[in-house]
């Protein structure tokens, strides 16, 4: 971790804690939804500790809960997590990691830590500080939120009575919402949803969501010169 003597890192630290608290709140809904989808509290907590990337975690439990099977669930989680690899590629030169810090930083490489690091790229020190404090803050609070949500949902009964089955698509929608920044994004979202709905009656559960990835590949190919 890097510190500057004049204390300019303090505002970064406090926004990192704010981001951690907000993420912890949706860790709460992840914990509850995961248990409602049929995972145990320990399985749910293992996901937050080891997988630690929200969209993939929600997708894995969503596909499993809908009866999609292990392979579809795992592939969906991996495809959604691919962007983290891209973040790491981008962050690597700035963070310039050695030794044990590399595997630790890898686990903390997610949307929030990357966005904070990029937002503070004006100096290398502040960019590194932003990455570490955001990553650690989100990791700790996401896991605490997960535990509380899982325990809460275990204590109460039928997910449909509580409307938790409606919370699942709402959760995915809230993850999708900030990415719908332009017409291209809307078109790709519409394409993904259409492919999935059209395939639902004809394929095993889990396949429709995987097939929607093809829309991203096709669009990515067509838009490769604009990226």
């Amino acid at each position: 971790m890097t510190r500057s003597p004049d204390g300019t890192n303090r505002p970064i630290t406090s926004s990192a804690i704010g981001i951690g608290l907000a993420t912890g709140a949706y860790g709460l809904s992840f914990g509850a939804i995961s248990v409602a989808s049929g995972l145990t509290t320990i399985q749910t907590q293992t996901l937050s500790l080891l997988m630690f990337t929200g969209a993939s975690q929600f997708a894995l439990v969503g596909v499993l809960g809908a009866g999609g099977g292990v392979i579809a669930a795992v592939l969906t989680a991996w495809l959604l997590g691919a962007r983290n690899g891209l973040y790491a590629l981008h962050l690597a030169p700035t963070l310039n990691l050695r030794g044990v810090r590399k595997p630790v930083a890898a686990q903390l490489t997610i949307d929030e830590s990357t966005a904070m690091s990029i937002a503070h790229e004006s100096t290398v020190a502040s960019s590194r500080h932003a990455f570490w404090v955001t990553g650690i803050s989100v990791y700790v609070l996401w896991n605490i939120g997960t535990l509380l949500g899982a325990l809460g949902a275990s204590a109460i009964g039928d997910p449909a009575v509580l409307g938790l089955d409606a919370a699942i698509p709402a959760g995915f929608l809230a993850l999708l919402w900030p990415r719908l920044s332009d017409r291209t994004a809307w078109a790709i979202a519409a394409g993904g949803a259409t492919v999935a709905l059209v395939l639902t009656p004809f394929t095993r559960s889990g396949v429709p969501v995987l097939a929607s990835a093809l829309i991203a590949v096709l669009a990515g190919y067509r838009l490769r010169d604009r990226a």
Partner: protein
Amino acid sequence: MIWAAVLLGSLGCYLEKLFGFILPPTLLDRPMIRSVAALLPIAMLSALVAVQTFGAGQSLVIDARLAGVVVAVIALLLRAPFLAVVLAAAITAALLRAFGFAA
């Protein structure tokens, strides 16, 4: 079986992150890789919204979940935080069922 998904899924997601720190950054120069990885979450999250709203096994149905999602859209338009969006959807569906307005 669930454990297999949890552990395999976690391993793969971790390796994706780790490879990013090990592989040469010049991979980022390939526009195709950048744009596909950026677009995957949009297509797949949208597919998940659709399937989790309308799917029931291999059939498509309209039930209380749709009302929940509509309320979630309103909450998002009002810039509600994540937890409020999810809670609003759950409470909507639960109330509609409790009063017998939807399955």
